[in-house]
């Protein structure tokens, strides 16, 4: 039987792992993701969650444990953020290159220097090109549901999934969350079927040195070179869109909650300006859209739920009729612009859409972003666009003199 509890985002993530019957968990503490693995360790020590729980000495080892355990056939989970995620960077590449369906909760936090324990999304955006699927959650319910969905997606397409949510804003904020029935989750999420299991009965050498070109094996069969394997990873990521959308639909059917597939929209039908964002910032933008509509400005929100693979087609569809676009994001690709803004522009290029796009860098290192500030930013953008400024980058609430 499902039941509701008041819980933090971190507890919701822990519940997602428990309901997914994860077999190996590897953990190393870092604020603000630590309560996820603390919650799990309580369940493990009380005998309420049967899993191999390895308390390693670094995040680099965390992801290594997930990679190796997954290679011998176990479903694996971990949680981290910020410097922990950066320290894993090498292993994130290795996990994706090995095509292992590892799922991780990433509790978005700023990166140093200088030190900040507060929220932005620079950590996961910096891992954009590792070959991981990235899902950004709006609320605690979506965190729990997305982790269960993530295993179903990952194990279909053999790609790892990062379920991202904003540090403190979601991780330490209590909300009512429906905990689905464990047996219903089992029906939704079949056991992990690895593409290859490393075992003594069938000795093989996994991930050895590979040449740039194709080579014949002992039976004379031509096997992939490095680049062919890497294309398969790209193909799998591109192809995962179908699995993500199908999984979202199937989850809605089974549990009655639909968080959107690749992206979600809010009051976009007749919008004269669309606000784009990810995670809790996009949630805040829905309040901003309400404020603007009350003032007679027809604003809507496009929330990007899946950042990799990027929802190219969905973005084109969502923005095709928009007269103006404001992209708010908690990251910056230094020397250019926000990563989401750049990607949205690139997606629209192929569709011939030339809508003015204003990029707002907001909330870095936990700086508060209020709905009325978003609304004000949109108003100023609309004036600038009316005056002919089609491109602009603004650091919201930031001293830029």
């Amino acid at each position, binding site marked *: 039987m499902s039941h509701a509890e008041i819980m933090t985002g971190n507890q919701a993530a822990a519940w997602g792992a428990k309901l997914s019957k994860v*077999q*190996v968990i*590897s953990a190393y503490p870092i604020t603000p993701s630590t309560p996820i693995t603390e919650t799990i360790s309580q369940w493990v020590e009380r005998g309420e969650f049967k*899993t*191999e729980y*390895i*308390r*390693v*000495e*670094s995040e*680099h*080892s965390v992801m*290594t*444990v*997930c*990679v*190796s*355990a*997954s*290679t*011998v*056939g*176990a479903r*694996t989970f971990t949680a981290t953020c910020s410097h922990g995620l950066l320290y894993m960077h*090498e*292993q994130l590449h*290795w996990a994706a290159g090995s095509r292992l369906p590892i799922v991780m909760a990433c509790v978005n936090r700023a990166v140093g220097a200088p030190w900040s324990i507060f929220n932005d999304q620079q950590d996961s955006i910096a891992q954009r090109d590792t070959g991981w699927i990235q899902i950004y959650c709006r609320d605690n319910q979506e965190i729990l549901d997305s982790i269960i969905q993530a295993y179903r997606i990952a194990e279909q397409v053999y790609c790892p999934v990062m379920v991202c949510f904003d540090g403190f804003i979601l991780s330490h904020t209590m909300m009512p969350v429906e905990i689905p029935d464990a047996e219903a989750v089992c029906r939704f999420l079949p056991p992990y079927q690895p593409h290859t299991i*490393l*075992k*003594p009965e*069938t*000795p*093989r*050498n*996994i*991930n*050895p*040195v*590979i*040449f740039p070109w194709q*080579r*014949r*094996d*002992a039976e004379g069969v031509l*096997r992939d070179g490095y680049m062919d394997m890497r294309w398969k990873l790209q193909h799998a990521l591109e192809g995962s869109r179908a699995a993500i959308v199908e999984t979202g639909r199937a989850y809605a059917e089974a549990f009655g909650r639909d968080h959107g597939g690749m992206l979600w929209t809010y009051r976009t039908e007749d919008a004269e300006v669309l606000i784009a964002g990810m995670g809790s910032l996009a949630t805040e933008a829905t309040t901003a859209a309400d404020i603007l509509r009350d003032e007679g400005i027809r604003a809507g929100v496009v929330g990007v739920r899946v950042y990799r693979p990027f929802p190219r087609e969905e973005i084109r569809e969502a923005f095709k009729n928009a007269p103006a676009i404001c992209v708010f994001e908690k990251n910056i690709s230094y020397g250019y612009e926000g990563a989401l803004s750049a990607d949205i522009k690139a997606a629209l290029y192929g569709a011939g859409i030339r809508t003015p796009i204003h990029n707002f860098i907001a909330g870095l290192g936990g700086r508060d972003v209020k709905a009325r500030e978003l609304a004000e930013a949109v108003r100023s953008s609309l004036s600038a666009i009316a005056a002919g400024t089609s491109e602009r980058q603004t650091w919201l609430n930031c001293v830029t003199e």
Partner: protein
Amino acid sequence: MPEKLFKIHKEEYMLPGNRTCSGCGLALAYRYVLKALRENTILTLPASCLTVLHGLYPTTSVAIPCLNCTFASTAASASGLVAGLAAMNRSDITVVAIAGDGGTFDIGIQALSGAAERNTDFIFVCYDNEGYMNTGTQRSSATPAGALTTTTPFLTKQQNKKDMMKIMEGHDLPYLATTSPSFPIDLYEKFVKAKRIKGSRYLQIATPCPPGWVFPPKDTVKIGRLAVETGIVVLYEIEDGKFRFTGRSKTLAEKGNRVPVINFVEKQGRFKKMSMEQLGQLQRSVDQKWNEFLRRAEA
């Protein structure tokens, strides 16, 4: 000696046609390591000379399953294998991590220390060829003072070799041992014993490297033997904290007939710039350690 030789497992797991350099000390040792470990084993290894030995995709020269891992992660990779196998109810399989001295003394030490502190049920093997040989002989913390490497090209390495066995002993391991490819029966017996023990086990193989140490490939066994005869390499094992000389080192300890380190040093091009002071320092440090071992053996 010959009857013990006949006890060695006949099956070959390291197949002919691997890519090591001629006269590779690792290749000599590895054949016996695998014979001792046998089928019910999963290996994990970082980028190293051993990766080269294992071969290029899609063929391999080793008939034991193997998971390649990143340089810093060898022991953590073993932890993951142990955890994954436990979750899959396959705890009958021995997990063995093998890295070079760079992957053990240097970049791999954090993961190794972590896995050893957790008493992860695995064997960690360090084949110590005293430098980054796979990348072309750069200095590591296992390189002895006085050795030329491509990153200590004129002045030689100024610092002493790190005592990794002592560091690992500090982890209260159930079993530690040193081995040499020049003494294959001693090596084989230690790996057979290690496989039977539970918990974290650490074995170090002192592997002569002809290109890195600059000696003719035909002399690998001779150089390995001289390392033991001089006491630069001491063959021993520490089981549940109890130290014991083994093999040739046991005989040397009993008879007290070690030869001076110059016999080992003079045969290798890497020591051609070694100063008399460095040579004297090496002899003193070998003597001091030898005496420490003698005291431990008597205790």
